[in-house]
């Protein structure tokens, strides 16, 4: 039952086609990857620059004059930053685990051919991605009926799952051989037991993928935070903190508000960059961590054996 890695390079001959593919990959992917990292690098570099330098020369790959002023500013009241981190991390962990559990359960059930209600329930779930009543009814329900204003649950709950994730999961589980379920049934196990003990260990890549997407959803979320977390909440999630900073400028310049208010204390470019760097920080490290789960789970051979 050990997980198998992909190929045995020492045993099989590497032919010309393989070499061509591999060469092409290295070049193509390599260029693309570099294109992805350069702008990110520029953001980090700019956050360490002086404001004046940014205004004169724009973004560069290396700060022309070094300064940690923006970081000093942010760390002067670190309580906000730390609080934001804690809130975001806790929410991500809880939301991802609970959501992943529910999604994988549902995805498994929906792809079982012997489940008579699967089409109906699939449609029921999918329909919600097509029709949305809009903001006002949803807000009304959350605030007045469920009483979730100023509560972290207002952010955590709506992100637990989405039709897209459930359908994606269903698709992944479909690829797992039906024999596994069959053999479980023969052994007399109930559906949930089959799911938990047999199916879940076989779907590690799927769990990793959906889990990653859920985690990213929580980490990057600012919309529900903006709507529901008001002044009585001390610590707001990271991305929302960043957005507030950036949007103050945009809001004041794009509306008639700009005509009335005095535009002082607008955040500087370097402050925006520093905040963006801090808000992204650790999540980048999540993906390499998740990477190692991208290995094949149980194989048919193992089951048959």
């Amino acid at each position, binding site marked *: 039952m050990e997980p198998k890695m992909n*190929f045995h390079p020492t045993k099989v001959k590497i*032919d010309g*086609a*393989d070499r*061509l*593919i591999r060469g092409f*990959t290295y070049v193509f*992917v390599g260029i*693309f990857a*570099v*294109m992805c*990292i350069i702008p*990110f690098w*520029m953001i980090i570099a700019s956050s360490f620059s002086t404001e004046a330098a940014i205004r004169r020369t*724009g*973004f*560069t790959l290396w700060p022309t004059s070094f300064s940690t002023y923006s970081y000093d500013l942010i760390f002067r009241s670190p309580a906000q930053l730390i609080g934001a981190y804690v809130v975001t991390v806790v929410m991500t962990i809880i939301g991802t685990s609970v959501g992943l559990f*529910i*999604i994988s*359960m*549902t995805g498994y*059930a929906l792809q*079982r051919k*012997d489940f*008579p*209600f699967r*089409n109906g*329930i699939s449609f029921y*779930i999918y329909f*919600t*991605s*097509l029709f*949305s*009543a*809009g903001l006002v*009814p949803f807000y*009304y*329900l959350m605030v007045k009926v469920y009483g979730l204003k100023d509560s972290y649950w207002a952010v955590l*709950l709506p992100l637990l799952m989405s*039709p897209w994730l459930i359908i*994606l999961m269903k*698709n*992944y589980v479909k*690829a797992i051989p039906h024999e596994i379920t069959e053999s479980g049934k023969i052994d007399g196990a109930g559906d*949930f037991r089959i799911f938990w003990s047999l199916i879940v260990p076989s779907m590690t*890549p799927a769990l990793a993928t959906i889990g990653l*997407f859920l985690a990213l959803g929580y980490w*990057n979320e600012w919309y529900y935070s903006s709507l529901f977390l008001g002044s009585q909440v001390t610590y707001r999630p990271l*991305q929302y903190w960043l957005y507030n900073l*950036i949007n103050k400028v945009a809001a004041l310049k*794009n*509306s008639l508000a700009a005509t009335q208010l005095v535009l002082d204390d607008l955040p500087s470019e370097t402050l*925006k*960059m520093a905040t963006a760097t801090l808000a992204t920080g650790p999540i*980048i490290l999540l993906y*390499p961590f998740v*990477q190692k789960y991208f*290995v*094949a789970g149980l*194989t048919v051979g193992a089951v048959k054996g």
Partner: protein
Amino acid sequence: MQLNLQAKPGKVAAPSLVHRESFWHKVSKSRVLLLMCFPAILFFFLFSYLPMPGAYIAFTKFNYNKGIFGSPFIGWKNFQFLFGNGQLLLLLRNTVFYNLVFILLGNFLQVLLAILLNEVQSKWFKKTAQSMMFLPYFISDVLVSLLVYNLINYDYGFVSNMVRTAGGVMPKYYSMPGAWPFIIVLVNLWKGTGYGTVIYFAAITGIDTSMLEAARVDGANGFQRIRYILLPCLKPTVVIMLLFAMGGIVKGNFGLFYNLVGNNSLLFNTTDIIETYVYRALMNNFNFSQGSAVGLFQSVVGFAIVMIANGVVKRIEPEYSLF
């Protein structure tokens, strides 16, 4: 390709049972599976279905004091500004065009990258490349537009400076509407490819390796393996992703377009989508009902398109349909 057995749904008893009983029979037979679906069913009921009647707001002149259902009914008036200005066709054209390109080109690139990365031996390369490709996803649209501006603005852009030192002439991109379909598509691909590749990479990893081993032993080379095993295995995932995207074909990515183009009306002809138009129209004239009306319109159109597309797929290959 699938090794599933075609199990027949539910009924084991003789066909002479009464219809009503067989429904409850079905429920009791699959009660564990139903229970497993229950949290999701509850979730969508609470957060998606309960608010739905509130879509009525699109047909009212919303009064804060009277609430949605107490506000006066005004029929189609909220839709007039969208339909009556001659712009709708242009907006729909742009919205759908960009979405189609994003979906088709995007998925193609993601599948390509997933397959290529799978072929590569070096674990280090795989890991690093994938992590790096993921990074753009984290950069918010506001910062993306700032970066693009820093690259290609005529006076002081990074690219402009390089072009001028090389003796060339820099095009004035921000005044050229024709360039922006390309720029926006490129930016969207840059931002979303890393994220999407993971989907297909996970699907590939889930492929039964004994099949691939057998193919190798049989002497199949790289191209053949890709063509006859990997691609067919990815097909269900691709179809699902495409089908799902159809539902949102008239819904644009507001953040991306608004931040890249902003208020530069020179570019509106080729970059204006429904969301950005509505935002500008309602910017100093805030109106919940009109905003809801647009959302409703987009939902109805998306629904129609998906029903048609799913129907077509069901006829061709029922296993690949969404529902």
